[in-house]
C-alpha cells in the first residue's frame, strides 16, 4: 500500500478514523485525504484500499450510500453504529501499540 509495510496493519484503523471524522467518504477521496494528511508520505493503493473497505462493509462496520455525481454513480462509505464503537477500540489498540513500540525503540521518551 505505501512506501512502508509498517503501515499495512493499521489501514483499517486509518479508514475508520477518517470516516469517524467525516460523515461519509468515497474510495478515491480516502486515498487523497490520507495522502494530504501525511504530506504524501503514505499512499494507499487501490489494491489495498478496496479489499479493506469491502471487508469492513461485510463485517457490518460500514454502510454504503449510492448517489449520482457527474453522470455516474458514486459509492459513499459511512460508519455504522457498530463501526463507531469499533473505531474507539481500534484507536485505543493503536495508541497502545505506539506506546509499546516507543518503549522498545526509544525508552527515554516512553
Amino acid at each position, binding site marked *: 500500500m505505501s512506501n512502508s509495510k509498517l503501515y499495512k496493519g493499521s489501514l483499517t484503523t486509518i479508514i475508520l478514523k477518517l470516516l469517524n471524522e467525516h460523515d461519509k467518504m468515497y*474510495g478515491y477521496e480516502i486515498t487523497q485525504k490520507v495522502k494530504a494528511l501525511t504530506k504524501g508520505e503514505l499512499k494507499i493503493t487501490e489494491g489495498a484500499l478496496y479489499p479493506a473497505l469491502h471487508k469492513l462493509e461485510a463485517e457490518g462496520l460500514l454502510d454504503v450510500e449510492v448517489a449520482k455525481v457527474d453522470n*455516474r454513480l458514486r459509492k459513499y462509505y459511512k460508519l455504522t453504529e457498530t463501526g463507531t464503537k469499533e473505531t474507539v477500540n481500534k484507536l485505543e489498540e493503536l495508541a497502545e501499540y505506539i506506546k509499546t513500540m516507543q518503549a522498545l525503540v526509544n525508552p527515554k521518551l516512553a
Partner: protein
Amino acid sequence: MKLTKQEIQFIDHYLIKNEVKYWDVRLELLDHIVSAVETKISNDGISFNEALLEVHRGFGNQFVEFGVSKDKIFEKGLYQSNIGFKKFIKQKQKEIGRKHRKTYWKTFLPFISSIRFFIELLVLTIVTLIAYQYSIKVGLFVAMSGIIITEFTKLFYGGLKKFKTKSLNMQLAISSSLLLTQMPYWLIMLFNWHYEGLEMKPYYILFILFALLFVFSRHSLNNFIKIYNTYNERYQLLTT
C-alpha cells in the same frame, strides 16, 4: 479538469473489455478511475492516455513495455493484463458472500419468530394435512411445493432482466437456489433408498425435513427481496 462524456464512456468500455462485466462492481471502479484520471491531468499535467495507463497499473494490472513500440503503449498497456481487476472481483465476491451469510443468520431468529412467517407456515401445514387425507404422495407434493415456489420466485426475479444477471450481488443472492430446488427430490430418493422394502415407511420424517427446508428457504427469499430492492433502486439511479 472534468472528463468528457465520451472519455467516461471509453473508461466504461475499457473496464468491460477487461472483463469487469458486473455493473455493480464497475460503478465503483469507474468512479475511482475517472476521479483519479481527472486529478492526474490537473495536478501532473499529463494526457488522458498517460493518466489512465497510470491508474490502470495502480490497480495491480501488470504491463511489460519491453518490445512494445511507443505509439502502441496505451492500447497494449490497457489490455495486456487484467490481473488486478480479477483480484478485485474475486475479493469482492468473497466479501459479498460473507455479508450475505452474516445478514442471513443475523435476521434468522427475528424472521422465524414473526407473525407473518407463523401464518405462512400454518397455512402450508393445514394445506399439506388436507392433501395428506387424499394420499401421502399428494401431501408430500404440497409440502415440497412450498420450497419449490420460494426458490423459483428467487430464480425468476433474479434472472429476469439484464440488470439482475449482470449484477454480482444478485448472482450471489440466487446462487443457492438451484441446490435448494433439487434438495426435496434428493431427500425423497435418499428416503426411499434407506427404507427400501419397508411396508410402512415413516413418511413423517420427510414432512419434518420439508418443513425445516421451507424455514431456511423462506428466510432466504426474505433476504433476497431486500437485496433485489437495493440493487433495483441503484440500477434505476444508474440508468436515469
